Each structure stands twice: as C-alpha cells, then as structure tokens.
C-alpha cells in the first residue's frame, strides 16, 4: 500500500497545485483543542505535521516556542500525542500525519518502542530536527521497515556533495528549509531565490518530493506555488496565540486561516 503522504502529493499534482502542509503543536493549547484543530483543518490541508513539543528547542522561533511551552505547561506527554493522532485517524483515516520534534523525546521513549507506537496510532512520517544525516542513517532504516517516511531536512547551507548523498539515502519526501533562520523568521530571501535553490535540489532526483518550509505566510505562499508542497507552521501557531489572547475560538480561526492559505495556492 502506498504511504498516504505519497497519495497526497499525487492528488495535489493532479490538481496542479502544491500540497499544503500545516504544522500545529500537539496539546496546544489543550489535548482536546489540538485534536479539534486537526479535525477542522483536515479538509483543506493535505498533510498534517504535528509538533512534539520540547522545552529546549534549538531550531524554533518564538511562535512555535510559545505553542510548545503552552502545551508542556498544560501537561502534554508523548503518549497523549499518540492518542491525539489515533483519535484523529478515526475521524479521517487517509489523511497523512507527520510527527515533528527533537531526538531526545524519541531517545527517551526508545527508538523501537516509539516507532511501534507511531505505527499503531497511524503516523506516516517523521521529521527529527536535530538528527541530521549521516547520524540518522540507522533510525531512517528502522522507519523504512515500518513504512514510515523519515523526512530529511535540506538547508541553504547544505553543500552540493552532501545534498546528493542525503537525497540518495532519502525516502520519497524531503524538506527544504527556505533560508537561514529558525522557524517563523521573516522571509529574508526572495521567493525567486528560494525556488531557484529548490530546483537545484529537484534536479538531483526529480522523483523525490520536496516541500519548502520556514517563513511561509499568507503573504508569501502564493509566490512559491511551483514547489511540490509548502509548509505553514509559525503563522498558525501565531493565530492560536492571538485567538487565546482575544478570547476567541482558536479552532474556528485556524480553520479560516488554513482555508485562506489553500485558496492562495489553487
């Protein structure tokens, strides 16, 4: 059976648009609410990235940090995250879900146990921010055995030789970090430049899907339409924070935002 992530890319390509990937933090601002957010955005998002909050994140900007600290403060545990994914999959079983987080959470849980739980709850892919190539080789192999995509990150600082090696070992989906930044930074390079770098990566192996993330908002998403997929994270986390501040319902507001994002790439 084809991984639902690949199905989602096929569907988007068929509709002649990039896949829309959203990132929300599990347990932000509560377990129930984060599940409801996933349910409400699933009709407009193609792939759902679910953040595993960690309290010493070395690559996240302030928006995602705020969401993560909020979720941790409200008591989220790794097992709760699997439960959220499982419950979501009962609601929409074909929607691909990717967990994104830091390696210590997996290491403490135990790699094998973690992957078993992923499989049982319906996780389709993993992004581990601080487990780069070649350190991730073994773990990526374990993921493959479970038919879970291990998604490699590529950055503007990744050298050409390294790009080739990483892509050679990679699974069908890779993630290109648009610029030198933590998540949610202001886009400091032009969309044109980002697409230029993206094309360089695609040329190495056109069959592998590459999504672009970091700094993508309602304003910039339309200019990056030629990519296989686009990830919006911090802008959504910011919307949750804003809603909470104004005592509005984050579920409705995030749902509206994701719909708007979708419209920009149609």
């Amino acid at each position, binding site marked *: 059976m084809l991984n639902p992530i690949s199905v989602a890319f096929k569907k988007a390509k068929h509709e002649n648009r990039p896949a829309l990937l959203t990132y929300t933090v599990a347990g932000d601002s509560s377990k129930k609410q984060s599940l409801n957010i996933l349910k409400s955005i699933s009709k407009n998002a193609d792939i759902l990235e679910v953040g595993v909050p*960690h309290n*010493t994140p*070395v*690559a996240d900007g302030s928006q995602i940090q705020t969401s993560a600290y909020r979720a941790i403060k409200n008591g989220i545990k*790794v097992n709760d995250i699997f439960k959220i994914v499982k419950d979501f999959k009962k609601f929409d079983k074909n929607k691909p879900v990717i967990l994104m987080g830091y390696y*210590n*959470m997996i290491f403490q849980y135990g790699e094998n146990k973690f992957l078993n739980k992923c499989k049982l709850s319906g996780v389709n892919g993993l992004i581990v921010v*601080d487990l780069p190539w070649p350190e991730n080789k073994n773990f990526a192999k374990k993921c493959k055995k479970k038919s879970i995509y291990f998604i490699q990150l590529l950055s503007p*600082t990744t050298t050409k030789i390294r790009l080739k090696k990483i892509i050679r070992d990679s699974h069908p989906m890779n993630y290109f970090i648009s610029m030198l930044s933590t998540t949610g930074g202001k886009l400091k390079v032009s969309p044109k430049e980002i697409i230029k770098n993206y094309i360089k990566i695609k040329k190495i192996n056109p069959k592998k899907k590459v999504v672009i993330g970091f700094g993508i908002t309602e304003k910039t998403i339309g200019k990056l339409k030629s990519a296989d997929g686009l990830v919006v994270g911090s802008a959504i986390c910011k919307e949750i924070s804003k809603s909470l501040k104004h005592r509005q319902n984050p579920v409705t507001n995030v749902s509206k935002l994701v719909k708007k994002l979708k419209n920009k790439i149609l």
Partner: protein
Amino acid sequence: MKLKKGIPVIDQGNKLGFWGGKFGGNFVPETLKKPIEDLEVLFNKLKKDKKFIQERDRYFKNWIGVPTRFIKLENLTRHVGGAQIWSKVVSDANGGAHKVYNATVHCLLAKRSGKKVIIGDTGAGYAGKMLSMAAKKFGLKCKIFMGAKDIARQQPNVKAMKKNGAEVVPVYSGSQTLVDAVSECMRFWVANCDTTAMCVGSTVGPAIFVRICGWSTSQISRELKVQLIKEFGSIPKKLKLYNCVGGGSSSFGFWNEFMDYDKKQCEFIGVEAGGPAKSKKHAAPLTYGSKIGILHGAAQYVNQNSDGQIEETESISAGLDYPGISPLHCFLKDTKRARYTAASDEQALEAYKLVTKFEKLRPSLEPSHAFAVAISESKKLSKDTIVVVNSCGDAYKDRGILEKRLGKKYVKSN
C-alpha cells in the same frame, strides 16, 4: 569504555564525535552542519600550526597574563589539620576567570575565518564578560545571550559586558538561566551562521565546541604541571585535584595534563552544584545519576523527566546552574578516571566564609563548591597529600548574593 593513553582526551572521540561511543556527537539542525564542519577543518588545521600556537601563547602571556599563581594556603591548612591545601589561582587571569582562554581562542578562530561578529552564551556572566573583552581586543562585534534571572543576579558582569561594547540579550524563555541562554544563542546562530561565529561558553554543545574549549582551558594544567615540579621537584606521589563542575570547562582544563597519571597518584574530584539543602532540584547530573539524553547538540547525562523534557535546576551559583554536563566528564566518569560529588549552596557558602577568613583569596561561589569538598576531605588525609583547588573565579561578581546570604561584613572585609 576505555580512556586511551598518549592521546589528548579531546581527540578520543570517534568519527561522529562520540566519546566512549555514546557521549557527545552532533545533534544539530541541518543548517549548522556546514558551519560546524568548517570550524572543525579550521581548528584541526590550526591546532597543528606552530605559528597559530605561538600567536595563542603570545596572547595568553601578554594579554591574559599567564601563568596564574600556584599558592599554598598555609593558614587554611593549619586550621583544617590534614592534607596540605594549595590553590591554583586561575582567577588571576585577565577578567577574573578561566573563561578567558576559550573566549580568546574562539576570537582568534573567528578572525581566521573572516567572521565579523561573535556571539556567546553566559550563565554567571564570566563567559560573556571574557568574550566581550576578547571581541573588543580583536575588533569583533559581540552579542551575549543571558537568562533574565542571571542578569538580575550577576549585575557586575553584565555591566562589564556592556562596558566592553557587547550587546546583552536577555532570554525570557524557560527557567531564564544558562540552559535557555545556550538554546537562544544556538538559535541565533542557526539564523546567522553565514556571517557570525559562535562561542559556546563551556565544554558543552556540538563536539567541536567541546574540543575547542577543552583545548583552550588545558592551559591551566600545563602551567600547574610546571609549577608542581618546580615546587616539589616532581609530581607529588599523592596529588588530589578538586574542581567545581558546571558545564565542565575549568575542571577539564585543570586535569587534562595529568590524565595519563595513575589515579592513585593523581586523583580528580569534580564537585557539582547540589542546590539548596532542602530542595529537590540540583545541577548535579553525575552525582545524582541522571540518565543520558540530548541537550544542546550533545549526548550527556542530563536532568530530565521520563518524557525527555529538560528539567529546571537550582543553584546559588549561576555558573554551575546547568542541567547537563560536558560529554568529556561523562566519559571520565564512566571510565572511572574522575570522581564526582556535590556540595550544597549552604556548604559552598560555609567554605567561602572559611577560605576568606584564613586566606587572602576570594573564590567565587563556583569554586567555593570545590573548596567545600576539598576542606572536608582534607581533614582525613595525610600531611604529605597535596590537595589543589582550582580557584577559577573571583567573588566580585557575587557580592550581591554574598551580602544577602552572609551579611555585609563578608563583602566589605575583602
């Protein structure tokens, strides 16, 4: 797990940067892979380059003012009535602490790589103060990340950083201490690694930073070895080296040159921060058996919960207030080359009182932890045992805390 003889410990890591196959490594975002590799290439080349070593030594001698003193604490020895207690007064170094060695080397490397800006983290403020001082000396722009709680409790060093022209960036996330400052500094580097050099303030972080820092602070033991031979004619038969351990930079540097001696002749004792006597929180992952985890790019023993969230620490000493510990010390612990224990806030304060009562020496709260254990153990040791405590920082930065906890006389009398 085995310690090899004849090879510097900083070079005993494997290809992926793991000591003993499991401590250290490079758990970093992809963006940092290239700048880290560049730094590795540069450092590996320069540490073999005679001209570079000469340049380093020139700055160490003329600017930092090495060697620092090695003195006998006669009155304290008499009072304790056991082993001979000596001190390596590393706080003599320019700026008042050992952090100046690492800061100087990082600035030299930054100059070589053509970077114009250098950033660093700081807890007690010494790493930041020294980096700002060195940056000024070498004409680099400097930015220091410091937890908001530490900014409040280490004001003298904050003032010094600003005076040196550095920007001090307060960090409000998490516990607002060193752990958050290091995270924020790394995040800034992720976003600016094309123009900016990063200095990690201790023997922590991705493997290359552990190595550079250990290489830099080893100046301390190089000097001590010469000084011991000059004083005793040879390395004493019973030598015990006490040092506080936070991240572990001063202790590693204090021990490095003695690594190959038998531990029966030359024992290393690392003293971690046990925190307030009545608190469950501490900053002593080695003493209290914390599990291995990943913090700031490296695998190490670290205070964490069962899920892998890093736990908050508590210590009177900002410089030791860190939930993790250098991979080098994890390695030295598991190979049993060094012994680790902890002293509480109260024990450190008592030791400070005792040392300042008997000697013209004013150790900061960090080395006061080492003095606490050294004094207590010395009582039971023979008179021919040579105990050396690294007094790696000066208490000037702590006067606010000392005044509050011990009263004005302990600040004034010095």
